[in-house]
Each structure stands twice: as structure tokens, then as C-alpha cells.
């Protein structure tokens, strides 16, 4: 399996690993086919993501996807549309191979679910 330098870099030094205590949005999503699991917690202040942490049981691409997702999320607003798409995750990682694109899908699913959780907590 060949990975971009960016994937390698994130795999070697993943950013924002862990779990935020008392998060404003939380999600755990999984891909039953390959067994990947991604856990994402968000701190959201004034409808803007100020902190994001992830944990994953997954392949190097899944770890890199989680890492880059948290980096991209911080500072973004949580309005009507999703703050992050799979295409952006894929692009930020220098392009995943067709076999590994599913890790960016998992990342987007986690983001959507965590934001949904935030809105639910807000009573919307």
C-alpha cells in the first residue's frame, strides 16, 4: 500500500489524539467492512469549533484522516452545511488511493455525527 508523504507525516505525528472532557459534540462511527472505528469529540464555542480530538482503531490512512480532520475543523463554524467534506480530507492528505478513500468517508461521517450531536444538545 503506497501512501503520500502527508499521510506518512500524520501517521508518524498524529495531531489532537485523545478525548475532550465534557465535549459539546461527540461521535463514534465505524466501517464494518474493514473494522475501522473513529471517535471524535468537539469543543464548540459560539457555533465555532475551538477544539477537536480523535481516537481511531484503524489503518495508517484512518489515523492520518483523523489527524488532518481535527486540524481542519478547528476554527470552523457549525452552521447548516457540514464543516468538512470527505473531498477536503482526501485532498489534504495528498490524495488517497481508491482502496483507502473510505477512511475520508469515515472522517466525514464522524464530523457530521458529532455536529448533529452538538445541535441535539443545543435543543435544535
Amino acid at each position: 500500500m503506497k501512501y503520500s508523504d502527508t499521510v506518512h507525516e500524520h501517521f508518524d505525528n498524529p495531531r489532537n489524539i485523545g478525548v475532550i472532557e465534557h465535549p459539546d459534540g461527540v461521535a463514534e462511527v465505524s466501517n464494518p467492512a474493514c473494522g475501522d472505528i473513529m471517535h471524535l469529540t468537539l469543543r464548540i464555542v459560539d457555533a465555532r469549533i475551538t477544539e477537536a480530538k480523535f481516537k481511531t482503531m484503524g489503518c495508517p490512512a484512518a489515523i492520518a484522516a483523523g489527524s488532518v480532520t481535527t486540524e481542519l475543523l478547528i476554527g470552523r463554524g457549525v452552521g447548516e452545511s457540514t464543516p468538512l467534506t470527505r473531498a477536503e480530507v482526501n485532498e489534504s492528505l495528498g490524495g488517497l488511493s481508491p482502496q483507502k478513500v473510505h477512511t475520508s468517508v469515515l472522517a466525514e461521517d464522524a464530523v457530521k455525527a458529532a455536529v448533529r450531536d452538538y445541535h441535539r444538545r443545543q435543543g435544535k
Partner: protein
Amino acid sequence: MRYIYLDHNATTPVLPKVLEAMLPYQCEAFGNPSSVHHYGRRARVAVDDARDSVAEVLGAPASSVIFSSGGTEANNTIIKGVAQARREHGRHLVTSQIEHPAVLDACAALERQGYAVTYVPVDERGLVDPQAVRDSLTDQTILVSIMVANNEVGTLQPIADIARLVRERGVLMHTDAVQAFGKVSLAVEDLGVDFLSFSGHKIYAPKGIGGWYERSPAVLQPLLHGGHQERGRRSGTENVPGIAALGKACAIAAGDMTAEEERQRQLQQRFEHGIRERIGEVRIQGEKAPRLPSTTNVAFGGAEGEALMMSLDLQGVAISTGSACSSGSLEPSHVLRAMRVPRPYLHGALRFSLGRATTADDIAYVLDILPGIVAQARGV
């Protein structure tokens, strides 16, 4: 950085003595073995000598050894060649769920041509039950193909028991011996098989050479036509340097097989014991089955295999994963699924495969770094 190669089931380095044995047949004694002149005769002698060395490892007559481009070609020739030659007798084959893709995909190709194939299961230890093979035989069965040693987990199948039951019923028996050849004793008379495939690059010969044993008179339609080489079983000018190398590799393997097997078995025990001492939630596949001394397939609960493999690679240790995720499919290994490996371990399997160059020091180094790598992967 220190580099340690623990992926010998994938391929092995060419031994210097093996390289030395093949070099004369590149530039100097380059003749075509079919030529009558001096150049051809020298090449012919090299091929004949190598055939003797291979035959000795198998305890078989030299005339029963056919050279090919490798294990995949051998498996394809035998499975498709027997199916073709025996199609008037029946159109049913039997194999196992844990075979190498070279066997499984050849069988699948036959299924598309209207043959029926039974894939017998294995138990949780990774072993085929000889009775299950016998129960799967019908009056349409023409060939049974079960591997000697599994490439992913190293389990050694009871080939002699299976072959006895199969041949009692007048059915031909093939075994893919690619992972076992040159590593454990494989006398074809003891195994009782009609066909056996082997490969050179798993035993320190170069890639691109291998072959098969066939019991005479063999029922087999050749895959390659076009000449009379290898008694018409496998046409094409012989890969003389490769054949010479394989002959040398077999002579070296025969020279110290028992001692090397014992040496690796001790390293394997030290390694597996060390893993259990240092790391929790460990599962060693096929632990309770007879296994190759070279192969340890181990999974760590809560840690994903490819991530572990890449972390080990960053620290100079080369291994394979047991999860096919890294080889392009999302599905976990067909071997581990057939063995009903529990879910938490299914995606975390690593294959460490030892070889001639592996030392106790190498094992100690891996045992030093492995706990940290597993802990890190579990922490992400």
C-alpha cells in the same frame, strides 16, 4: 538504523553460494540446453544436476521433477491441467478455504468453466480434517488440492492422512508445498501425493524459478505448448541460471534442514513466549497446531495491523500484515476468517516470518520495541 527482515514467507534473499552457482550460466555457459553443441551440453548438464538436487529433497526420481517459472505456474498447471485431462471422468475438485490465491483463483477460473469446487473448512487451529475431505469426495471428483503449510499462519496440514483417503478413492492428490519445501522434510512417498508444487524464491534462490513433482504416469494437460522442453510438460527454453540456483538452494537446504528447523523453532518459542510476557490481549494464530518454525501470526486486540506494520517499518523491522486491508481489499484475511479468529483480533494480525539470517539478537530487538508500538497503536 538497524534493519531486520522478518518477512521470509514473502520472499528470501538469494544466498551468495546460490548466486555463485547460477552466474556461470548467464554470460559464459549461456547455451540453450536443447542445442547439441558444447554450449548446449554444458547447460544441459546444469539442468540435469539441479533436477537431481531437487529430486533428492523430495525423495523422488529425477524424471518426476518439472521446472516452471514458480509456484503460481505450477499450481495453475496442475489444477487446470488435471481438470482438462480428466474432464470426461468428472468435473468436481476439492480444496480448502485457506489455500494460497494461486490455488483458490485457479479453482475459481474452473468454476467459471462449469466445474464444481468444494472448499473444505478448517478448525480454529487452522487445520483441515482429513475426514471432511473424504466426505466431500463424489464419483465426479477428479482432484484434491490441499497445501502443506499455510503461508499466513504456518499451520502444517495432515497431508499424508488426507492423501491416503483421497487415493483410496482413486482421486488424484495435489499439494501446494511452496511454504514448506526446503524447510521441513517432504518425502513424496511418505506424503503419498500425485503432484506437489514448489518455488525457488522462498528458499534463497531467485524469483522466477520453481516447479512441480508429478507421479508417473501423470495425467496432466500442459498449460504451455510450443516445444518439447521438460518432456513436453512445460514448454519454453529452460531458465538455466534459475534452475542451477534452485538446485544449489536445495542442496543447501538438504544439508542442514533438521538443524535449521530446530534453530528456528527455538527462536519462535523465544519470540512467542516473549510477546506473551510483555503484551496483553495477544492471540497467536494456529498456536495449538503443528506449525512451520518460521511463522508466527500474532494479533493484538485493539491495535490495527497495518498501523503496527508501518510503525515497525519505521523502526527497521520488515513484516507483513494478516489483514488484506493493506493488499487492497477491505476484507480481513480469508485464512483468519476461515479459522474464525474473533473480531477484535481480525484486523490486528501481523505475520513475522523467520529465516536463515534471523538471530536471537534480532528477536530480542523486536521484543524490545514491540510493546511500545502496540501501546502507541492502542492509544491512538
